[in-house]
């Protein structure tokens, strides 16, 4: 653990278990997952389809609840929160980027970015927002509606929104899954720079070893369990690991 950038946890899961259905149809989407995401870390989560990656993201972001175990964001244990407080936690302390459909179609790019602050009734830190927009390269497109933006631009807006509140942690579920590799790489470098320059914590699900190599840590999930982990991965190392896991 000495080579980690920081040792303060931004979020962690303890014995996280999620069971869908019961009896014959029971599915253990998460099976006692223990994981810690340290501040300023960029973690990639990989694993075969159906291994529980999305479920882990949802449960950690407070979008879904666990059957058993606990998720802690910063100092807050999610199981102690009411539905409303969970919402507020998502608004203020967690960022989320989905694979697609991240934006409200009726709002412009900038309005989408400041949406969480608007919802909170707080005034956005204009300097920070400008800096984020500058970094993603959206400066001249802020007043456009989502349907006037390309898929890559839309994802950048979504990442900007996640960054805009300076949350404790950002979860991204296959953020580049719908993009070509060039556009995907742009997004990934942008996320990388958010980690390097702003010390943002990011957890990202991906199927792409190249994408995973942007992270400084890769976690492998199979059948709802963490089976392995890589530090400072290269695409080849990730590929080898994936092969060895079958």
């Amino acid at each position, binding site marked *: 653990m000495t080579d980690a950038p920081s040792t303060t946890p931004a979020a962690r899961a303890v014995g996280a278990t999620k069971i869908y259905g019961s009896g014959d149809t029971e599915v253990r989407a998460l099976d006692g997952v223990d994981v810690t995401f340290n501040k300023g870390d960029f973690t990639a989560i990989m694993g075969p389809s159906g291994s529980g990656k999305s479920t882990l993201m949802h449960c950690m972001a407070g979008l879904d609840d666990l059957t058993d175990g606990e998720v802690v964001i910063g100092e807050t244990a999610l199981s102690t929160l009411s539905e409303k407080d969970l919402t507020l936690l998502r608004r203020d302390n967690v960022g989320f980027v*989905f694979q697609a*459909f991240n934006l409200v179609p009726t709002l412009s790019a900038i309005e989408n970015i400041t949406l969480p602050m608007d*919802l909170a009734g707080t005034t956005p830190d204009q300097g920070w927002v400008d800096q984020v927009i500058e970094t993603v390269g959206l400066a001249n497109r802020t007043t456009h509606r989502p349907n006037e933006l390309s898929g890559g631009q839309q994802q950048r807006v979504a990442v900007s929104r996640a960054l805009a509140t300076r949350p404790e942690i950002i979860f991204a579920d296959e953020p580049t899954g719908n993009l070509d590799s060039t556009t995907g790489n742009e997004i990934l470098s942008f996320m990388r720079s958010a980690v390097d320059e702003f010390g943002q914590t990011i957890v990202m699900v991906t199927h792409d070893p190249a994408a995973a190599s942007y992270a400084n840590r890769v976690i492998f999930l199979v059948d709802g369990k963490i089976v392995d982990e890589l530090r400072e991965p290269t695409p080849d190392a990730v590929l080898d690991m994936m092969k060895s896991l079958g």
Partner: protein
Amino acid sequence: MGFRLIWRNVTAKPFRFLLTCSAVTLGVMFTVGVFVFTDSLRATFGDLADDIQGNFDIQVRSEIPFGERIDAPQVPVELSDTLAAVEGVEAVQPRIISFNTIAIDGEGEAQVTLGPPNLGVNWESDTPSPRLFVREGREPRSSTEMAMDVDAFADGTFEIGGTYTVLTNDSPRSFELVGTFSFADPETNALVGAKLIAFDTESALEILNRNEGYDDLTVVAAEGQDVATLLARVQAALPDGFEALTSEAAADEQAQDFDDFISRFQTFLLVFAFIILLVSAFVIYNVFSILVGQRIRELGLLRAIGATGRQVTTALLGEAAIVAMFSTVVGIATGIGLGWTLRWLLSRFEFAPQGNDLLLEPATFIWGAIVGVGVTMVSAIVPSFRARDISPMAALRSDARLVHRQPAVNTVLGGSIVIVSWLILLFALISDNWQLVLLLGPIAAFGNTIGSRRLNPGVARYSTAAFGIALLLLSLILDLGTGTVLILLGVAAGTTFLGVASISPMWAPGIVGALGRWPLAILLLLVGVPLTLLGAAATIGCAVLFVIRFVALFTDPGFAAGVEVVGFGFAITFALGLLALGLRCIDTSFILGWRISRVIAAVFVFLVGAVGVVLALTGLAGLLTLETAEIALLPVGVVLFGAATCLRRFLPTSMRANARMARENSRRNPDRTASAATALMIGLALVSTATVVASSFKATFADILSDSVTSDWFISGNAQGDPTFNFSTDLARDLDMLDETDTVVRYRFSFEAYRTVVNQEVQDSSATDLANSLEHLNPDFVELDESLIGRDTIWIHEGFAADNLLEIGDSFEIEFPDQVVETVTVGGIFTDASIYGNRVISLELWQDRYPTGGDQFLSVTTANGIDDDRARAAILAITDSYPQLNVDSREEFQERQENSIDQALVVINVLLLVAIVIALLGIAITLALSVFERTRELGLVRAVGMTSRQMTRMVLFEGAIIAVFGGFLGLILGTLFGAAAVQVIPDAFISTLDIPVTDLMQYLAIAAIAGIGAAMVPARRAARLNVLDAISHE
């Protein structure tokens, strides 16, 4: 396309299906209800007609060339002997019948019915087949005796053998009540709501008809005598001016009279049914458009796998057909129930005959089906046909939209259609016939729209509204008959509504953008606070009453008491509903999240809490000192304090984003917003029109009173405007003799008073004491020659003078219903038609021609130096004997007029309420569908941190936006058409335009509240969405 697919689509979303059906169902229900109701009334009255005219063979009466039968001259007494001598006549029964014969019961109450007449008749003792059957006591035999029908007897405090005063249009007189009777049947009194008093024939002749003669004679043929032959013989025996007809003909005529009245009533109700259906059509149209829009990908997929465009249309129309059939069946069933309930209520409150005959004519079912199936299918046709053009590619695109297909431009065809439409309109207008205008007006409007679409699609959108406005202007400019011009105005209104509906999508973004900011938030705050307080007060009040009644139930149980307790239970629920709605309004108003609203809210909450504490403390002090009155304050205070504590939860956070999203959502699909709003627009436009007209009516009256009326007291009956209402001429004489009064002026009026000989036109007219009236009323004379005042004087309106080229001093001939021609001389020409109408003649002349009538209205001036209280006391001392009359000072009279106008307005608004409820239902459905459609987006905003309360506010605000948008357009259109109606209604009725801005603003406020109310269910659904499910929603 397979029926299975259609059926699946319908059953997949049962709630949505039911909501869609409810709009049509309500329309069908109302239509069917009106038919069942009026048919049943007609049947009851048909039976009554037989009872009235069925017990003889031949009726003999005076001939009237025009006018009302009740105003007909009497039949001379001698004629009955002449007829008795005719061969084949078994018996001749003279009949006398007079309105306004009112008994005063033992407690001094005038036994006045609310709707049916108070009749005085003679006891028919000469006929072998009587209509009156003694039930108790005996028939009246002398001039001091009377009998009354058993129901009238039971209604008042009467005793057989007692002596009671009877009011007629002759002097009040006392009679001994010698018996009761039933009408038409010895067992059951078939007298349907009317009250009947019988005197012996000689007294009736004197007191009801002033010895002028009988009203008619009925003849019974001798055994075996052929009636037709007898009729010929009787006709031969009659002098000029009299006629004879068979009992069948008489009964038919009577039934026809009743029928005319019921038909007018039916038309009135059907107009509302039409409005309701129009509003339903918009709702259905909107719902189908949304459904097609939402299923565009699914429909595209069907096309991709090989369905033809026509099959897609058929599938959608199939769905519409299922909606149509279901709602029609339910609508007819509930409509029958509604009709029956109305019928029951009407007889329950004695507005109409008893009778529980539920008449189901085939026409009722046919109309119900036409209306239900027709409206649904017509409304669904446009969206279904649009679906035909969905390309298979739509299946692949996420943002596929329905396109409006424009017809190809064809100047010649379009131009000729437009020209023909205008020619049709011109023809209808030249005919000046309201039926033609009603029929051809809409056809012309339709043609104009169709034609202009082929001329220039860009301009075509405006063409319908432009046509409507053109009709409006024509109705103002052209000199048409009142009936025609009102119908023209109605057609103009309908066309403009449809026209505005088709343009309003273009306005929606702008208006919604402007309204959906602080104006709406302020409006919501303004309506929310009073509504909350009202709701809180009502809740407390009902709760207290509930507890009191509930406790009382233990000491004094009983069915009625139990019903009361349950009633208060419901009332509490209702009051809580108001409270919740009010809180929702306040809450939603904070959506803009201004600092100031937060401050206002905080202050408000603090004040409520503080008042609560003060009240609670006062109550507590009261409890300690046992001051009973103040103890009640304790719970009030506690509740207020509790309310304030709860309200603190509502203290707002900023939600500019929510407001923006709500606004954008309503702008994103302007077609949808506009058509959801249109239904409400129509409802509110009509309410506003009625309000403007009523308010102008009141203003006119206030103007007349202040400008043209100088008398101090007014004596009137409750049934003003009913030409059959009159009272004893003694009253005017007695009041005139008082020292406290100066002059008393008497008034008569008839819609068919006489006809002008020169052109045979029947004229309405007033009559009054011309000389004295100058001190009471001033119809604004252009010219007046007081020296000409006499029996044969007529004063006329300048319009009538101009039309007939009459000047002061000119004479002309008028003929009365008794066929006497009088020559009248113009003694004055006036400009203000609101007082006498267009003509007024002298009372002397009127009385000569209508000898049996009483006075209809009196105005009185106070003598010099007498104060109001003394004058009133003196007048009341005399009018005490006439409990059916009202004595009013100027202010009271104005108030009475205003009240009766307000009552009429309430009736109209209640009927329009059904349409408004349907419109709100439409808003609710639209919102529910858009919430469903936006599920994914809503899930997203929830995921990034929108709380469920914020979500609720957002949807509620959207509802308020749609409703206020519709309300706003409705108010503008309604005011426009109200003002136009005031212009075209003759000055005799309404001359002053008054636009009641406060009332109209209240409607807008109510629209906002209603919008919130309509959005509550969709908002709850949106707030309860599961975030994850929503995000992954397809």
